[in-house]
Every structure is written in structure tokens, then in C-alpha cells.
């Protein structure tokens, strides 16, 4: 009934002439018209229907009521009007009527309504009786758009607690039937019912609201309670902390496993009542307990404090204790107990370790210092003074430090721009350097610095410095021994390669002899074959040079010269080694498959040492296949770029492989799986590769056999290193120590 609603939103125009109330009323007609007899059975059925509708679904009561009126009065439209303030819910103080339900032809107008003080419903309430209208739109023009027009409208008031709240009504849109006295009676009857229904509905809505609120409150309480309960239960059962329930007299009424574990009692002890907190407390702690009890009596809680308990065996456990009385109990309470044994142990360990630290530094010849970069505030440990052979307590300056550092390393340290780096960044760094002592002795130092920021955000280095002189000496001795060993290994390896070397030498020699013979014969013919002779002579010279190269290589291999450092093309080294070992490999029926990467970066190293390693790996691969008959004795040698600017070489055989358990021992000196080996080949090879800042390792193939690989840095990085920190760290990168 949007049109109707709109119409009374508009102020009424008093200038429009309207019909008088009397002219639209015909209530008296009801008594004059012949009345139909009452149909009590139908009336009863209608009421029963209404009651059950009310019981089943109170919200549809208005619709059921409208339908019932229409049915029982046989009218065209029927509905009810209720006072409202918001247009939606019934309200006795409402200033207009709204139509919550309409049955019949006016049904599309549900939701519409009429003003309280200028409309048919208002007239009914004002006159406090049933009224019969005819064409009320003549007086109330806002009802004109409400179609179809009402020929007659019978309205009956209803009251709740003596207050008018609305009307129920029936409408005839034509004169096919006139309302009569029986309609008046039955509408009055329904009016009474409507009153009860309205009341019931209000009460039900109110009740529902109350119930909902109560349920909500109860749910909140339940949730709160169960949440708390669950949390407490979890706390107790988790046994993270000890939980104990007690009374002020000294009894322990309950405890969780964690508490029982702390004091080493069991559930039976607890059940027997023998475990009393007063007995668990050593005499010197009773005072603390008494203060806690006093707090409990006044405030209900006691602040946590540390104390000790006796365990069942009489030993003591340090604990942290805190607790409270149960609300409203006055005597019983709960406490949490934390076992502090670990913390106490850690604390005392810390105290001990602090004491040991100084001694440890002395024993390990490790000093430490801190350096606040902004202020150049340097603090040394006592041991560091001892290492530098300075009087303990002398103020430390960078100048003082430099006066002790070996002149060669000072320049290197300056090159490193250590201080600049330190001042700029927050990097950790590690370096080695030497000290030149006043007596001209040299100390080797290894330092590790860690950058931190103090609470003011200032950069501070904490560093430890170790005197590694003794270790250095031992390393040098070891490296020298290794170097000797490497020589022995080299000679031994080469000894077994005699056949190969002979072959390598005799092939060009054979060519030389044959070519020279041919040349002579060509010159002896008549006429001399000068052109052929010249060609054979050229070959002779070429093969002679080829031989000379071979001899040079062999001399290098056999000689015990100091290693040299140069840029090396690993592929060339591989080809040289292949040339040296091909006959040996052929003799062992090994198929050698080189896979040499194009454009392989150069490496920095000692050519002869690298030859030796590769030779060794090829020999090992060949030897590993000496008993293989059921598959090709394929030996693959591959060079490739490796990650991290490195070059990798792999020698993969199809041999017997190795015991994975022994993988670590493969590289040990004198470990061998070969009957005729000395077991120094791989050990020496690894030393050599490590001397090249590389890594040598072995893996088993998916199929038969094993692969040995090494990976060494490419030249550019190696050259950079030669100028960098690493050079200080390992001054003998390429010296005998590296072998």
C-alpha cells in the first residue's frame, strides 16, 4: 500500500472539501438488515485455527486472523490495523495505524495504513464501538488510490488492558453482499480474540527477548567458566609447573605429577596425608612460609619467592613458589611451584666458567679484545698482553698493536684496509698475521672478530686472537713430510709408467729414424728425389721437437723441484697426462673417453702437481677395472665449470667401486685396496688439491664403479687471493707446505 502510505505523508489540504463523518457511516443499517443465523460450528473451527496458529507460529497470527475474518464474514478483503510508532511493530502510543496483514483483494496493500486521528480506525476508537462505513474515501481522500474502493467497511475495535491498540475489519468492494448484525457479532467475538492474541504475541516476543538475553548471558558464563576450567586443567595436566593444593594447617590436598616429581613423592604418599608442606620446608625457610601465610590471611595471595623443599630422600630442591587462597575458602588455596635446579646449576656453572675462562685463555694461548670503533677504545684480556709480551694494563692503541705486527703483515693489513672496513661495515672477519717480537722471533696469530652494536648503536668488535705458532710449526713440519711423501709417490707412480714413457719416447723416435732412412734413400736415387727428401727431413725435425717436449715434461715430473704457480689450462694438463698414460691404459684394455669442456677457465696452480693428481686418478680408475670382464672398461675423464667460480675435473670408472663405509678412509695415507699399492696416491692427491684451495672427493656411481672429482678455484679468483687476506693466512699457498 505504498500509495496510501505516501498519501498521508503529505500534509492534508484543508481546502479540499471532504464528506462529513455522518455521511459515510451507516452503522444503523446493520440492525435493519435481515441477519443470517450464527454458524457456531464454523466460528469454533475458526477460533481453534487461530489458537493453534498462535501456538505454532505466533508471527503468522495476524495473517491467520485476517484470513479467518474474510472466511467467516464472506467479505472481499479483511485485515487488521495496529497502532505503531515505527510503522512496523505494534505500539499502544502509536500515532498511526499500520496494516500488518490483509486477506483478499486488498492483500497487495499490506504494510500501508491510516493516521490515528483522521481515518476510519481512529473514528472507531474515538466512538469506542463497531462502525460500518460506506465509501470512506469520500471523507478520507488518501484512501482513494487504495483499490478497489470499499463499498462497505465493517470495523471492530479491540483493546488490551483497556487501551485501544487497533481494529479488525472486513470490506465489501461491491454491493453483492451487505454486512449484517451477525457479522457485527462475530467480528466482536474475533475482536476479543484478537485482543488476547495481541497480548500473547507481545508477551511471547518479550519472553523471547528475555530468553535470548538469558541464554546469551548463560552462554557467556559457561564459556568463561569452561575456558578458565580448561586452561587451569591444562596447566595442571601439562606438568610444566608444579601445582599444589593445600590448606593453611600444612596439609597438601592435591598435587600434579610435576610437583610430585620435584619432591620425589608418589600418589600413595600424597593420599596417605603424610606429605605436608610444613614438613617439606627446611627450618631456615620456615620464616618465609610464615610471612606467606600472613600475606594470605590479609590479602588472599602471597608474592612468589624462592625457597627450598626437602625431597623424600632428604636432599633439597630449590623452587620458586607463588599462590593464593581459593575464593571464599579462607583456609584452602593453590600454589604453583617451579623447579629451579637447572637455573641454579646454570648459574653456578656460569660462575665457574667465568673463573675458568681466564685459565682457559692462558692454556689455549687465546687472548681476546674488544674494540669500540668510534672511540678506538680497546680492551685486552690478560692473556693477550702475555702473547704480545706487553705489561698487563698498558693502554692499548692501534699504534702499539702495529709496533708488534710483522712489517710485512702491517702492509698487508693496511692493504686490507681493515680499519676502514671495520669502521664502515659490521662484518665479521677472520685473518692471520705474524708478530715480530723484540728478540726477532716470530709468532703466528689467528684472529676472529665479531661485530656487534652496543645499546647506543655503536659498532664494537669482540675478537679472539690465538697464538698458533706451535701449530704453525707442526703444520710446516707435516707439510714438509707430505711434500717428501708426494715426491716418493710421484716417483713410484712414474716408475710404473716406464712402459708408457718408453712408448711416448719411441713413437717419435721411430718416426725420426724411419724418416731419416727414407730421406737418405731418396737422396741416393738417380736422380735424387729432392722434394721427397726435403719433406721427410722436415718430418724428422718436427718429430725431434716433439720428443724434446716429451723429455722436458718427463724431467719436470721426475725432478724434485719446488712447486711453481702459474695460470694453467686444465684441459692441456689432461691431454698431457693422457699422452703419458695412454699405453698403460691400452695395455689394461681401458677405453678412455675424454669430455673436456670448451672455454674452460684457467686455474692457478702447479702444473706438475696437477698432472700428478690426474695421473693418479687415471691409474686408480684403470686399476679398479683390472678384474672387470663383463662390461667395457670405460674410463671417463671430464672437465667442466663448477659453481662458485671453480673448475671441476672428474674421473669416472666402471670398476669395483669402494666400500661406502670406508669412504672417509680412502684418502688416508697408506690406506689401499690394491695388492700392489702403497696407498699414498689419494692422500697425496688430496694434499695437493687442498694446497690449491680445492677439494677432492669420491662418489659411488649409480651403476658399477666410482668417480673421483676435484674442484679448484679458477684463475681470476686465485689471483685475487694472491693479493688478499688468504695470502696472509696461508703464506705457503704454493710453497712446499701446500703439497
Amino acid at each position, binding site marked *: 500500500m505504498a500509495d496510501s502510505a505516501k498519501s498521508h505523508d503529505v500534509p492534508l489540504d484543508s481546502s479540499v472539501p471532504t464528506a462529513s463523518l455522518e455521511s459515510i457511516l451507516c452503522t444503523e443499517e446493520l440492525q435493519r438488515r435481515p441477519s443470517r443465523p450464527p454458524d457456531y460450528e464454523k466460528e469454533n473451527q475458526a477460533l481453534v485455527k487461530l489458537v493453534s496458529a498462535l501456538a505454532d507460529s505466533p508471527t503468522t497470527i495476524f495473517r491467520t486472523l485476517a484470513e479467518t475474518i474474510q472466511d467467516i464474514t464472506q467479505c472481499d478483503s479483511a485485515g487488521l490495523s495496529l497502532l505503531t510508532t515505527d510503522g512496523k511493530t505494534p505500539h499502544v502510543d502509536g500515532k498511526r495505524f499500520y496494516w500488518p496483514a490483509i486477506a483478499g483483494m486488498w492483500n497487495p496493500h499490506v504494510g500501508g495504513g491510516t493516521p490515528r486521528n483522521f481515518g476510519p480506525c481512529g473514528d472507531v476508537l474515538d466512538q469506542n464501538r463497531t462502525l460500518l462505513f460506506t465509501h470512506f474515501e469520500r471523507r478520507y481522500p488518501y484512501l482513494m488510490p487504495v483499490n478497489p474502493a470499499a463499498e462497505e467497511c465493517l470495523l471492530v475495535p479491540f483493546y488490551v488492558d483497556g487501551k485501544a491498540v487497533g481494529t479488525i475489519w472486513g470490506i465489501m468492494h461491491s454491493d453483492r453482499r451487505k454486512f449484517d448484525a451477525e457479522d457485527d457479532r462475530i467480528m466482536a467475538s474475533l475482536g476479543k480474540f484478537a485482543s488476547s492474541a495481541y497480548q500473547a504475541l507481545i508477551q511471547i516476543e518479550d519472553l523471547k527477548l528475555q530468553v535470548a538475553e538469558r541464554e546469551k548471558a548463560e552462554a557467556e558464563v559457561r564459556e568463561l567458566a569452561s575456558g578458565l576450567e580448561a586452561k587451569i586443567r591444562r596447566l595442571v595436566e601439562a606438568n610444566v609447573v608444579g601445582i599444589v593444593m593445600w590448606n593453611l594447617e600444612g596439609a597438601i590436598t592435591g598435587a600434579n605429577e610435576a610437583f610430585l616429581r620435584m619432591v620425589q613423592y608418589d600418589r600413595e604418599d600424597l593420599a596417605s596425608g603424610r606429605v605436608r608442606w610444613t614438613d617439606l620446608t627446611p627450618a631456615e625457610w620456615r620464616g618465609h612460609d610464615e610471612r606467606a601465610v600472613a600475606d594470605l590471611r590479609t590479602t588472599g595471595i602471597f608474592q612468589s619467592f624462592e625457597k627450598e623443599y626437602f625431597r623424600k630422600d632428604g636432599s633439597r630442591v630449590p623452587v620458586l613458589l607463588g599462590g593464593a587462597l581459593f575464593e571464599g575458602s579462607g583456609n584452602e588455596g593453590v600454589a604453583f611451584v617451579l623447579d629451579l635446579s637447572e637455573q641454579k646449576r646454570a648459574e653456578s656453572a656460569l660462575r665457574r666458567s667465568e673463573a675458568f675462562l681466564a685459565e682457559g685463555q692462558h692454556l689455549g694461548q687465546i687472548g681476546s679484545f674488544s674494540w669500540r670503533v668510534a672511540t678506538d677504545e680497546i680492551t685486552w684480556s690478560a692473556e693477550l698482553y702475555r702473547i704480545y709480551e706487553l705489561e698487563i694494563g698498558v693502554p692499548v692503541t692501534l699504534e702499539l698493536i702495529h709496533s708488534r705486527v710483522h712489517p710485512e703483515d702491517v702492509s698487508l693489513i693496511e692493504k686490507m684496509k681493515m680499519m676502514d672496513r671495520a669502521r664502515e661495515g659490521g662484518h665479521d672477519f677472520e685473518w692471520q698475521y705474524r708478530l715480530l717480537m723484540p728478540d726477532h722471533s716470530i709468532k703466528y696469530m689467528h684472529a676472529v672478530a665479531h661485530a656487534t652494536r652496543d645499546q647506543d648503536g655503536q659498532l664494537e668488535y669482540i675478537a679472539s686472537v690465538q697464538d698458533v705458532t706451535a701449530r704453525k710449526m707442526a703444520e710446516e713440519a707435516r707439510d714438509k713430510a707430505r711434500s717428501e711423501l708426494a715426491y716418493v709417490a710421484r716417483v713410484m707412480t712414474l716408475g710404473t709408467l716406464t712402459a708408457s714413457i*718408453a712408448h711416448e719416447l719411441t713413437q717419435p*723416435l*721411430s718416426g725420426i729414424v*724411419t724418416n731419416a732412412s727414407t730421406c737418405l734413400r731418396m737422396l741416393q736415387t738417380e736422380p735424387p728425389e729432392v722434394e721427397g727428401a726435403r719433406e721427410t727431413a722436415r718430418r724428422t725435425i718436427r718429430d725431434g721437437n716433439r720428443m724434446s717436449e716429451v723429455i722436458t715434461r718427463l724431467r719436470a715430473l721426475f725432478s724434485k723441484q719446488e712447486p711453481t704457480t702459474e695460470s694453467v689450462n686444465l684441459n692441456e694438463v689432461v691431454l698431457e697426462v693422457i699422452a703419458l698414460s695412454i*699405453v698403460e691404459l691400452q695395455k689394461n684394455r681401458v*677405453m678412455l673417453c675424454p669430455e673436456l669442456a670448451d672455454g674452460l677457465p684457467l686455474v692457478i696452480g702447479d702444473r706438475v702437481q696437477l698432472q700428478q693428481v690426474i695421473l693418479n686418478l687415471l691409474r686408480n680408475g684403470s686399476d679398479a677395472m683390472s678384474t672387470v670382464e663383463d662390461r667395457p672398461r670405460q674410463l671417463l675423464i671430464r672437465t667442466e665449470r663448477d659453481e662458485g667460480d671453480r673448475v671441476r675435473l672428474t674421473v669416472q670408472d666402471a670398476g669395483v667401486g669402494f666400500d661406502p663405509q670406508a669412504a672417509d678412509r680412502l684418502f688416508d695415507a697408506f690406506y689401499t685396496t690394491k695388492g700392489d699399492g702403497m696407498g699414498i696416491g689419494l692422500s697425496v692427491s688430496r694434499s695437493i688439491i687442498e694446497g690449491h684451495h680445492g677439494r677432492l672427493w669420491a662418489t659411488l656411481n649409480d651403476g658399477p664403479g666410482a668417480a673421483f672429482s676435484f674442484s679448484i678455484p679458477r684463475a681470476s679468483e686465485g689471483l685475487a687471493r694472491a693479493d688478499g687476506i688468504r695470502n696472509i693466512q696461508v703464506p705457503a699457498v704454493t710453497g712446499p707446505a701446500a703439497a
Partner: protein
Amino acid sequence: MGAIDRLLVSVVDDDGSVRESLPDLLKQFGFAARAFSSALEFLASDCVDQTRCLLLDVAMPGMTGPELQQELIRRRQAIPIIFITADRDTIIRQRLIEQGAVECLFKPFSDTALLEAVNSVLHPKS
């Protein structure tokens, strides 16, 4: 003498300098000469039937000289064989001769030693 009338001496050696130099010398001796880098290359060629003498390297990748010798015996190709080897192993030399080789020359060998060995095959009476 036309090349067609010359007796064919074949050389099988994996070493390039041998393949390069020996045929020239053999031609100086008056023979036709062909060189092959492997036993299989020789077996696959059309020279097997015409070869009157075979100068055969002992150690070669793939099929070795002695293995080629056995293969020729199996094929009933009775080509006289002179082994040439860089390995001065008299025991092996002895064995090779026992197994039917005409001679086994240690590299480097002189032109006269070679000519003598070849002539012993191709000119037994001279």
C-alpha cells in the same frame, strides 16, 4: 714398374708418425704401401686380400695387433705379419713369433732391419 705390379705392404698403427713415415720408406723399397690407423679399419678395407705383408703395431686401442692376428687366422687369411712395437719386451716378442709372426721389430728400427724382415716374406730366396 707400374704400381699395379708392386706387392702391397699394409701398415696398421695408431701412431700418426708411423703411418706417415713407413709407407714412404716402403715405397723406396719398391713396394706399394697402405696405412691404417686401426685393425678394424684394415679389416673393413679392400686391401686384406691383396696385402702380401702386414706391418702391425702390438698395442692399439680397440683390437690389438695380436687380436688382429688371431682374427686373420680365424678368417683363414694367411697374411705374413711383422709386428712393430715400442715395448722392448723380449718375452712378448718370443711369444708373438711362436704364434706365427714373421718378425717382431722394436721401435725405432733401422731401414735395413725392416727391409730384411719384409724381404724374408716377399723374396724368400733373395
